[in-house]
C-alpha cells in the first residue's frame, strides 16, 4: 500500500469520525445524560467497533473478490454501485431511523454498525481498496484469500483508528469545552457532502479502473 492510499484511508476515517451522525454526538449525549465523562469515553469504543464491522465487511468482501476476479471488474461494478448509492443518498430525503436513547454498549455498537452501513461508509473506501496492489497469486484462490483477508483487516484497522481518534477528540472537545451551542453554528449538512463524497469515490474508481 502506498503513502497516497494510506493518507486517503486516514482522511476518510477522519471524515467519518467528524460526522455527528456516525456516533460522537451519541457519545456526548450519553455523557451529558449522566454528567459523566467516563460514560462518554466508554461509548466511543463501541461506536468504533460498529463502524469497523461495517467497513470491514466491505473491505474483506472486496479483497476476497479481487483474489478470484480482476480488479477492473470490481472497480467498474463497485464504482457504478457507488455513484448510484451516492445519488440516491443525495436525492432521497429519507433519514436513518432509530428510536431509542437508552442503549447498552452492545446495542450502541449495533446502532453504529447499522448507521455506518446505511450511509455506505465502507463503500466510500472503494477507490482505496481497488487502487491497492492486487494480492499475490490471485490465480490460485486459497493463498490469495489469506492475503486478501489480512489486507482487508489492515484497511479496516487504519480507517477505524483514524475515525476513532477524530470522533473521540470531537466528542471530548464538545463535552468539555465547546458545549452543544456549537451544533447550531458548525453542523454543516454532512449528509449532502457525504453523498457527494460517495459519488466522487465512485467516479474515481471508475476512471482509474
Amino acid at each position, binding site marked *: 500500500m502506498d503513502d497516497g492510499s494510506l493518507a486517503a484511508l486516514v482522511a476518510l476515517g477522519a471524515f467519518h469520525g467528524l460526522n455527528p451522525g456516525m456516533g460522537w454526538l451519541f457519545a456526548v*449525549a450519553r455523557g451529558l445524560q449522566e454528567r459523566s465523562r467516563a460514560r462518554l469515553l466508554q461509548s466511543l469504543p463501541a461506536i468504533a467497533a460498529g463502524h469497523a464491522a461495517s467497513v470491514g465487511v466491505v473491505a474483506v468482501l472486496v479483497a476476497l473478490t479481487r483474489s478470484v476476479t480482476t480488479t477492473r471488474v470490481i472497480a467498474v461494478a463497485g464504482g457504478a454501485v457507488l455513484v448510484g448509492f451516492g445519488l440516491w443518498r443525495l436525492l432521497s430525503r429519507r*433519514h436513518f*431511523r432509530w428510536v431509542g*436513547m437508552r442503549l447498552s454498549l452492545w446495542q450502541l455498537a449495533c446502532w453504529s454498525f447499522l448507521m455506518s452501513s446505511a450511509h455506505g461508509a465502507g463503500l466510500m473506501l472503494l477507490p482505496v481498496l481497488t487502487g491497492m496492489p492486487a494480492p499475490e497469486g490471485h490465480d490460485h484462490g486459497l493463498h490469495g484469500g489469506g492475503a486478501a483477508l489480512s489486507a482487508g483487516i489492515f484497511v479496516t484497522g487504519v480507517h477505524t483508528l483514524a475515525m476513532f481518534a477524530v470522533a473521540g477528540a470531537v466528542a471530548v472537545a464538545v463535552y468539555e469545552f465547546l458545549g452543544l451551542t456549537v451544533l*447550531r453554528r458548525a453542523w454543516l*449538512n454532512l449528509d*449532502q457532502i457525504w453523498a457527494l463524497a460517495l459519488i466522487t469515490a465512485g467516479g474515481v474508481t471508475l476512471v482509474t479502473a
Partner: protein
Amino acid sequence: MALWKPDPTFYASPREAVKAPPETLAYVAAFDRKAAQPDAIAVLDVDPGSDSYGSVVGWTELPNTGDELHHFGWNACSSALCPYAPHPHVERRYLIVPGLRSSRVYVLDTKDDPKKPGIVKTIEPEELAERAGYSRPHTVHCGPEGLYLTALGGADGDGPGGIALLDHTSFEVLGRWEVDRGPQYLAYDAWWHIAHDVLISSEWGTPSMVEDGVVGELLLGREYGHALHFWDLRKRTHVQKVDLGDEHQMVLELRPAHDPTKLYGFAGVVVNVEDLSASVWLWHRDGDAWAARKVISIPAEPADPEALPPVIRPFGAVPPLVTDINLSVDDTWLYVSCWGTGELKRYDVSDPFHPVEAGSVRIGGIVNRTPHPAAPDLPLAGGPQMVEVSRDGRRVYVTNSLYGAWDDQFYPDGVGAWMAKLDSAPDGFTFDERFFPHGDDFRGLRPHQVRLQGGDASSDSYCYP
C-alpha cells in the same frame, strides 16, 4: 430542499432554547361551531414593536366546513438533533392541523408567506381510518420516527383511541403506533421523556362520550378517563397504568419536564366528582415503577344556582375545570387554566413535589365574567383555556374556547371569542393591556390552541440537558 446549517429554531437543550429570540407571529386554531363557514388558522402579530401588534394579520381559511380545529403542531422540532438519528437540516415550516370533528388533517406551509400559510396536503378521514384505525385526531408531536398524532376514536366511531404515526416528510399515515396498547381504551394526550424512551398518555373519552357535550350520567358514573399510561417508546408497548382514582374525571394535558435528565411531569385533571375541585398531578419514578401524586388541588367556588348553567345548577358551585396546563421550558413555572372560574394560576414548580402559587389573574368565568383590563366595561364569557408559553418563558398566551359542545353547556349564552397575553416575570404576572384581540377580530370563530412561530413550551423536546 434540505438546509446547509441546522434549522435555527432547533435547540439541543432546554437551557439553550430559553435564549431563543421572542416570537413575532402566533398561529391560532379558530373554528365555527355552527359549521356554516370554514374553520381557519388565524395569524396574530405578537411583535410589540409592530403597528399591528395584537391584531389578526393573516388568515388561512380551510376548504371545508365543520372540521372543528383544535390542537395542532409542527412537522419538525428540536428532537431532530437527537443523536440516534440526527437530521437537523430539515425545516420547521409545516403546521399539521387536525380537524377534531371531521377527522381530516391539513398540512399548512408557513414558509413562503408566514402570515398566510398555504394548504399543501390534506389527509382524508378514510386514510387515517384505513391505515391507522383511528379517528378524531388530537395532539401532534414531532417524534423520533415520525409525527405522532393522538386520536380519541377508532376507525368506525368509538374506541379505542390511540396514536397514529405519520411520515416526517410525505405526511402519509404510516399506521397505528401501538404494538401492544395494554388496558388503555380512552385516549387524549401523549408526550414523552424522549431521552428515556418513555411515552406517557392520558384519558378523556371516546367520541360518543364527548361530541355532544359532557354526559352527566357518565360523569357521575365516573366513566370518563382517570388514569395515566406509561409506554416503552422504542418497543411501542404498554408498560404501566397508574389510576388516579375514579373520582378524578378526565385526565387531559401532559407536560413532562423539558430537562431530559428528569423523569417527572404534570397532568391536569378536569374535575373531582366528589367536590367539583380540579387537580394537577405529578408523575414520577418510585423505585422501579411509575407513581403519581396530587400536588395541586383547586376548590370549586360556591355560587348562586340561578347564575349557573343547567349542567352544574344542582351543585350550587362553579367547578374550576382545569382544562389546560403548561410548563415553561426551564421547568420552573406551571400555568394552570381554570376555565370554569375564569382564573389563570401560576405556580413555582422548582420543587415539583411542592408547587407554590406565585400569581393569578382573573378573566371571564361562568359567574364572574371578569373583563380584560383593556376593555373594563366588557364582561367576558369563556375563561382562560388553551395556554401557551414562549420559549424564554416571559410571555403567556391564552384563548377562551374549550370545545364546541362543551362551550355551549357551560356558557349557554355564548362563549364569545378572545385572546389575551400575560407578561410573566419572577416578581409579576400581569395582563399586557395592548394585547386583546376579541369579538369580531375572530370573524365569529372560536379560538383554541396557540402555536408560536419558531416553537413554544409545548412544541419541542430535547435530547441533551
